[in-house]
């Protein structure tokens, strides 16, 4: 009866508009509703599992049974410094650093062109060209590269018809980074890594350069800076946050990858493969966890140093 009486006085507000009214009066409620799912996700699934990982790295393996012993120990971390494990870490860091530097050098001119000069359909073309490799399957790309780099592959064939086999062979003859063919060498692995992670360097760099007003570059020229000086004193420092964001991607993605080293490369392990092997076949979860902590620590130190050097001053 009362409900009907109320409804007759005013047009009955729908459920959704009544909900809107409640949200209007209690603004925190909307915020809480919007933030709860991501916070739960980040809090429990993400940070939680990260903490579990960290916790695991402080356990050890019982030497007799081979089962995880749930007692605090630093012995697992000590194992990281054993010759075989430490080599894996150094190898991964060197590869990740090389990939990051090469990506930055290749990405910068592309990003600079896209941010400063490309307009309209050229800009659309740029985004397509950069993003398109990300659309196809990662595995397909890696196997495609395996074929390109293989002994019977396109690179060898191209070297033959251009009569530059000597060059290819001398590159492959280089100690350590060479090998029987590009597809079984660090050089090949490096090329594939750079190809696969390059978009992750281009996009943040381009975004950073996009935010640099053209008048700043004109101002530096106006104040007497030639293009090289303008680049060093204005453009690079302002693009640095983007380059660092990109380098976080390329560095940590390379550090964590276990597929490319397996398909293209030598039989020597990288961190990703070590983690994969330790937590799988070896059943050594603590050592796998300790390996995983390495990139996290390195990224932490890297960001701290970058901040100390003023890389984020432009933000």
């Amino acid at each position, binding site marked *: 009866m009362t409900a009907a009486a109320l409804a007759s006085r005013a047009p009955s507000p729908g459920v959704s508009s009544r909900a809107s009214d409640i949200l209007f009066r209690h603004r925190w409620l909307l915020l809480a509703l919007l933030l709860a799912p991501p916070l739960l996700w980040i809090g429990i699934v993400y940070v939680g599992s990260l903490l579990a990982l960290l916790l695991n790295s402080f356990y050890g393996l019982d030497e007799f049974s081979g089962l995880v012993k749930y007692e605090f120990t630093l012995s697992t971390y000590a194992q990281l410094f054993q010759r075989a494990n430490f080599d894996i870490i150094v190898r991964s860091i060197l590869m990740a650093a090389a990939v990051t530097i090469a990506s930055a050098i290749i990405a910068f001119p592309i990003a600079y062109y896209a941010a400063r000069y490309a307009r309209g359909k050229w800009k659309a073309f740029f985004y397509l060209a950069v993003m398109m490799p990300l659309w196809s399957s990662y595995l397909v790309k890696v196997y495609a590269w395996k074929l390109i780099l293989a002994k019977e592959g396109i690179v060898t064939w191209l070297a033959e018809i251009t009569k530059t086999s000597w060059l290819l062979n001398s590159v492959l003859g280089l100690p350590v980074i060479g090998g029987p063919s590009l597809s079984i060498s660090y050089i090949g692995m490096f090329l594939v890594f750079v190809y696969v992670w390059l978009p992750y360097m281009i996009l943040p760099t381009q975004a950073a350069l996009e935010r640099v007003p053209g008048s700043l570059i004109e101002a*530096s020229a106006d104040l007497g800076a030639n293009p090289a000086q303008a680049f060093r004193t204005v453009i690079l420092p302002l693009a640095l946050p983007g380059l660092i964001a990109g380098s976080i991607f390329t560095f940590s993605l390379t550090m964590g990858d276990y597929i490319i080293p397996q398909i293209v490369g030598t039989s020597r392990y990288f961190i990703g493969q070590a983690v994969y092997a330790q937590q799988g076949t070896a059943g050594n979860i603590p050592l796998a966890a300790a390996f995983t902590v390495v990139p996290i620590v390195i990224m932490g130190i890297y960001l701290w140093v970058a901040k100390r050097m003023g890389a984020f001053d432009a933000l």
Partner: protein
Amino acid sequence: MTTAVRFQNVSRHFGTIRAVDDVTLDVAEGEFFAMLGPSGSGKTTCLRLIAGFEQPDKGHIEIFGETAEGVPPYRRSVNTVFQDYALFPHMTVGENVAYGLMIRGLPKASREERAREALAMVKLSGFEDRRPSQLSGGQRQRVALARALVNEPKVLLLDEPLGALDLKLREQMQEELKSLQKEVGITFVFVTHDQGEALAMSDRLAIFNEGRIVQVGRPSEVYEQPNSRFVASFVGSSNVLPPDFAYEHGGSLNWTSLRPEKITILKNGQSTPPDQVSVTGKVAAVHYQGSQTRVTLNIGELRMTAHAPSAMGTFVEGQSVTFHWPREALHAMEPKQ
């Protein structure tokens, strides 16, 4: 006197847009020169041609007798105060001001010293260690000024430098800029769309319209003797009288300018002085502006505005009012086509 900047038949076209079209111009050394015009009239492009950010398609530019075409901006002894100030966000105020000196390779101690002096000149002593983001608009403007002046340029270019400031600050900065220019004695070329600013600050000004210079002269010349309908209505407000009307009311058969402040409103019961011309119409609009009141009359098709002292009393729309003016107040501009 030496010519600081010389334009000889300079054109700069962007596709079909004639941003600067056959401009010839001389700016004397030590002059405060304003380029005035509506947006898109080519004044900023002219400034960028002097700075070197643009190169002319045709014509010849000289800066202190030296050919400027093909000379990159970083080889010109010209500095710019940008419209958005263009302060480097990753540097402190002190580093911003010392930037030009750093590029020239001055030792750290002496460039810091000179940056301090330059900041003192624009009344920002002690701001060296702040970031541009911590400054107000007016302060940023001063930093931009100090950053340009510290290099002791031969010509200082200012691109709408006061455009982003509020009215009070703008008036204050107008005076400061003017006295600063006297103090340093550098040639200033100043771009603005604000005619009041151009009249108040410049020694001479050029009026731009559609890529061309319409008139050049001292502020009083341009204001008193506009050479075209465009100048008359763009610089200050003016009654632009059609040739026939002007001829019938004390003038010649030309488009004629009559400034509102030259018109007197006839008081009740008085008659027009014998040597003056008058016209009567109905009040169409009244704008009270404090010390004066703008009264607009409908005279047939024509609208005329006069500035009356507000003390004269109030006017009502539709009221019949007589304007009168001396013949010499009429300034003939363009002939009847």
